[in-house]
């Protein structure tokens, strides 16, 4: 059973995570700002990482995360609990990222590269801040290989990237991804295979020494 540890009156109480989430949602739906803040704290990092890899720009990721929480706050009274809260939040984030990418694609067509470079800061659309607290596994991994994988993921089409990030990075199940994207589970699996295949090609080329 999934369980979570929460502090209550100075004692540690083990509660079922799902019912705790349901209570949290109920409180947030009744405009309890503290409850909504708890929801933000629970999901901020996960959503930020997902959005950042979807759009590639930290500035855009911050704007989009703000928008996700604002829409969630406004939409919570209509949240019926049929999907889990995380599924619902990832759905909002995915829709906003796809909208953002469409708008950016149109903007790139009309704005010159230099103007775009100025707007994006140093022009590094796929730059990520350094990891502050790497875990032992991350430290052991080849930094170059990680860069290769980051670039390979960034080069995927939005459809493939969404599924790959939700499954392999955010660790959602096939069923959850199907609900987030409103597509059949078979399509999730097929997109995941395609996405992994494309990333693997980059890694293979790197391991062979074809690319850096």
């Amino acid at each position, binding site marked *: 059973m999934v369980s979570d540890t929460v502090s209550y009156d100075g004692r540690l109480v083990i509660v079922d995570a799902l019912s705790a989430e349901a209570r949290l949602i109920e409180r947030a739906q009744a405009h309890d700002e503290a409850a909504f803040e708890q929801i933000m704290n629970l999901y901020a990092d996960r959503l*930020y990482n997902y959005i950042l890899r979807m759009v590639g720009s930290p500035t855009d990721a*911050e704007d989009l995360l703000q928008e996700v929480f*604002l829409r969630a706050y406004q939409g919570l*009274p209509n949240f019926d609990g049929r999907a889990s809260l995380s599924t619902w939040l990832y759905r909002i984030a995915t829709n906003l990222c796809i909208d953002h990418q469409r708008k950016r694609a149109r903007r790139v067509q009309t704005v010159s590269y230099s103007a775009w470079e100025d707007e994006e800061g140093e022009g590094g659309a796929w730059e990520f801040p350094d990891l502050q607290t790497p875990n032992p596994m*991350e430290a052991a991994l080849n930094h170059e290989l990680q860069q290769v*994988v980051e670039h390979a993921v960034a080069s995927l089409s939005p459809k493939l990237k969404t599924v790959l990030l939700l499954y392999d990075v955010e660790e959602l199940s096939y069923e959850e991804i199907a609900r987030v994207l409103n597509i059949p589970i078979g399509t999730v699996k097929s997109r995941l295979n395609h996405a992994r295949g494309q*990333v693997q090609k980059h890694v293979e080329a790197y391991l062979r020494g074809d690319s850096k």
Partner: protein
Amino acid sequence: MNCTRYERWMWDALEGRLGESQAQALQAHLRQCPRCQRQWESAQATYHALHALPRLRAPEQLMHQVRARIQHAPARPPLFGGWKRVALAPALGLLIVLGYWAFTVRTPDATQTIVQEPSESWVEMHEQLEVADWSPTPTANYFITTGYSR
């Protein structure tokens, strides 16, 4: 050798989804196929790199900004909450009755329309002929077929 099948199994093996007999078959195949061995190495590297991508913390000031925006944002009321939910059922019922009435009572009889059309077109044709008077010498056959008379 059916390499395609073993390639498909590689990701299942990495996720621990492969059955014991399949895992043994894959291992045996990898020992004798250098191409699949290379594929296996790249699949392993990709899998571990994907699962070890850096996890970043959302910037702290971002949460302050969200809080500020939420305090100024009006909470959207539920779409069908409170009295709206009570009013929804009768409103839907009324809509169905109106739709049925519009469909059955107000729709003109299709057969009648077909019958009326030829006579209306005859009248129109006569009027146009009268205005245009395009034929200075109409033939006798014309007067017989149309019943037109001046």
